[in-house]
């Protein structure tokens, strides 16, 4: 199967200083990368699509590295992550599912030993569609302070025969987190949950 053909890539970083409460010493940063690629299966049902997951692995790795780069180059600052895929209208939701393995693999490879499942979203959509990409703690899915989401979208993508694949990373808890639950400092980090 061919390498993914990239039409465009959009990288974004948000730096959040406060949300009306006391500003913490370190601002929260949230980064997202959206890569718009050709969907090799657009236009009709293709039974066997799994080979494309392998082709997407280098892209997943490159996108994960891009996120660490825009967050300053030190992977140890990353505390939350998530992924998503938007399928253009001539494709099938199942094509978005091909992003699970390469997207997750890329981030775990770059972050070292992240334990928690990477939360994800997928949808079929037209150019300009927005997606809320879920975010959870990289080592323990139940850490309540790190539950978040990042909205992404590209005004001209995905076209009907494209896929927009997404990875996101954050550097900490919500800016004024105070809803209780498991704290990041209390996790055991063994099972990826607590």
């Amino acid at each position, binding site marked *: 199967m061919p390498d993914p053909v990239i039409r465009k890539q959009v990288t974004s970083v948000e730096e959040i200083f406060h949300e009306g409460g006391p500003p913490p010493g370190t601002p929260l940063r949230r980064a997202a990368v959206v890569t718009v690629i050709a969907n090799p299966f657009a236009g009709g049902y293709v039974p066997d699509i799994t080979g494309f997951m392998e082709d997407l692995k280098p892209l997943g790795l490159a996108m994960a590295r891009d996120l660490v780069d825009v967050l300053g180059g030190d992977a140890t600052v990353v505390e939350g992550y998530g992924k998503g895929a938007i399928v253009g209208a001539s494709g099938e939701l199942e094509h978005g599912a091909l992003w699970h393995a390469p997207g997750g693999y890329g981030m775990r490879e770059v972050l070292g030993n992240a334990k928690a499942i990477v939360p994800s979203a997928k949808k079929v959509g037209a150019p300009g569609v*927005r997606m809320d990409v879920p975010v959870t703690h990289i080592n323990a899915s139940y850490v309540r302070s790190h539950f978040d989401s990042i909205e992404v979208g590209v005004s001209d993508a995905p076209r009907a025969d494209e896929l927009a694949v997404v990875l996101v990373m954050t550097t900490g808890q919500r800016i004024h987190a105070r809803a209780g639950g498991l704290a990041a400092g209390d996790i055991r980090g063994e099972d990826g949950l607590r």
Partner: protein
Amino acid sequence: MSADIRKIAVWLEETRTESGRPVAPPTRKAVAVAVIANPFAGGYVENLEPLMETGAELGGLLGTKCVEALGIDPASAESYGKAAMVGENGELEHAAAILHPRLGAPLRAAVGKGAALVPSSKKMGGPGQVLDVPLGHKDAAYVRSHFDGIEVRLNDSPRANEIMVAVAVTDSGRPLPRVGGLAADEAEGRDGLR
């Protein structure tokens, strides 16, 4: 910094192919947004001087964020633009006070030169609304290949008492320009027009 900045977001967009043709080198556009408290939300205030000073601060800050995101020497910047969206408790004139009197000079310092007028747009709006930032060549406004725009949107901004201020900088024109007119390499860049 006199402005109360709640968050800063930076996007970098890179286009590598268009209509199946490679774009080499890729075209790249950066846009940086600051979400600030509107000190004059809620009622008419005659003297808008503090917002003019905020404009000067943000012109340098956001222009530099864009140049850093592009990873270029300031002199390699090719086009620029600015825009603001005022939350519902403010007034369109607040955008004008930020954008027009003083934002330009520090922005021009951040991009090396800038003989041309900085194209601009402004509107009132609410969280999640799109702000289109116009783009034009920084030294010669008639360069046709560099007429463009870039869309920004933050799902949580601007709140009623906030203002979203955007500055965009590119190192290139449109992906496959072919509608004629003045070319970038033919521009003199003295009068800001040609």
